[in-house]
């Protein structure tokens, strides 16, 4: 009778895509014997919806370093087979912010940092470990490197080690250079990412009239 499908557990939602007629895009986890895979799906029947889903999938592959799976269109997974869901959810939302023409390409592991007044670099140490570094001459560099590392630990659920405060590590022990590049700018400003999350969570929830602020 119904038209909705069992798509697995929805882990993220872009409720209105400004680049495709305000359609809603969902990211669903599907569990197979080989591990976790993720499906980008919309229930919209708009004629532009399928190509927009393809753009988002391409973004997850090119920007976040996922791989397309042959089983089903729109299905992607991390090469390591792991979940990394917090990082994936953030990457999905970031990709959804872009028009199709701007989606694609691995983002660099070197970025300017206003607070450090220098460039910060992410250096792969192998086995899923990364170090955030700044030029030796940058006075504020070491402090910012630690802050950005903490940002990665929070955004990507990476492991950190107090003895090496600028090093973070993926639990899977595999390299995820693309993912690090994709979320570098977010790790530099975790607070804004958190505020964005809070705003998104409060939107769409009906408050009792007495709790509504009555927008002027």
């Amino acid at each position, binding site marked *: 009778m119904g038209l909705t499908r069992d798509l697995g557990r929805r882990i993220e939602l872009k*409720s209105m895509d400004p680049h495709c007629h305000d359609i809603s895009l969902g990211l669903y986890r599907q569990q197979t014997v080989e591990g976790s895979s993720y499906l980008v799906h919309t229930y919209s029947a708009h004629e532009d919806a399928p190509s927009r889903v393809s753009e988002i999938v391409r973004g997850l592959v090119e920007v976040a370093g996922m791989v397309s799976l042959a089983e089903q269109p729109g299905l992607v997974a991390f090469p390591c087979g792991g979940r990394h869901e917090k990082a994936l959810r953030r990457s999905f939302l970031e990709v959804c912010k872009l028009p199709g023409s701007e989606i694609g390409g691995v983002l660099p592991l070197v970025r300017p940092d206003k607070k450090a007044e220098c460039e910060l670099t992410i250096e792969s140490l192998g086995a899923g470990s990364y170090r955030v570094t700044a030029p030796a001459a940058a006075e504020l560099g070491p402090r910012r490197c630690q802050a950005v590392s903490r940002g990665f630990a929070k955004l990507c659920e990476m492991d950190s080690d107090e003895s090496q405060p600028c090093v973070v590590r993926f639990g899977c022990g595999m390299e995820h250079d693309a993912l690090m590049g994709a979320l570098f700018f977010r790790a530099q400003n975790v607070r804004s990412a958190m505020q964005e999350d809070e705003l998104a969570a409060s939107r769409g929830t009906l408050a009792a009239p007495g709790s509504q602020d009555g927008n002027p």
Partner: protein
Amino acid sequence: MVVGDDQAAAVPGEMTSRERVLAALAGSPVDRTPVCNPTSVATVELMDLVDAHFPDANRDAEKMSRLAATSYTELGFDSVMPVFTIIQESSALGCDIQWEQKDNWPTVRMSRPIWKTAQDVTMPSDFLTHPDIVCVLDSIRLLRREFGDEVAIIGKTMGPWTLGYHVFGVEPFLLMSLDDPGHTKLCLDRMKEITIAFGQAQIDAGADALTLPDHATGDLVSGEYYRDFLRDLHTELVDEIPIPLILHICGRTVDRMDYIAETGLAAFHYDSKNAAAESMEIVGDRIALIGNINNPETLFARGPEQVAAEVLSNLEAGVPLVGPECAIPLQTALENLKEIPLTVKRWHAEQLDSSPGDVTTEAGE
């Protein structure tokens, strides 16, 4: 499972959704606990599915009906509820409305109240022909035509206390209630006519039951306030509106449940801030409880396992109708909503397996 001793037994699965909901609202035996949404289970994904998006789905009868129907056709609930918002009447009364977008709720700009005293309280002569009222009435007619007697069609008419917030502004209205209780009661009594008029029009259009949101919420007013300002007024509404009324008040309300149970209202749609067992103990069989699956923490932010746990807690407490505590967040995942009827059916099947002689359950037990 408890057999309804003095009433004819119903074979599990033989009741229609409509029969099930109406029986539970009447305190009669049901074949299983109905899953009911007295407020709203609209989501952005369901809007996409049937091409009926907010804000249009709040102002266009055809879209409103399409979206409301998904509650039954997609989620498996036993009721449909086309009146997603709490502002249709306020729009028709002349309040300034922010209609918002697909992913957010419309609100009344309560900082711009339209009335100041009881003398201002009048129902416009064209109230029932205002487009935001007509679309609700047409939507109920469309749903009745489409579903016949298959599913319960629940309408909504806002109670006078909530209308007071909308037309006077929250703060002025609450201050009036402190400074001049008599004048406040006069305002409420006059606004009650709006509640009755819209309710009766929905009955004429085909509604089976009406939700009566009247937000005397625990965070703003006390239980004694409910007793002094609303208990008798709600009793009068029961006398005036001849179909089951489902009162909805958000928040912690155990301090007023006893008063609510005295009104004769068919049901109380209650919040997850009130434990199911604690609430059942207060109301007993005087009024049917509906709820109380948590919205922000469970339905919105967690998964089907946690939803199932809350459904079970209601079933085990004997709550007669199960559903979300309030209008669900528009971004809620469909798998969480579908889990509510699945858990109810699973629980009843298990109960039946463990006591094969019993075929009917006293509403909710």
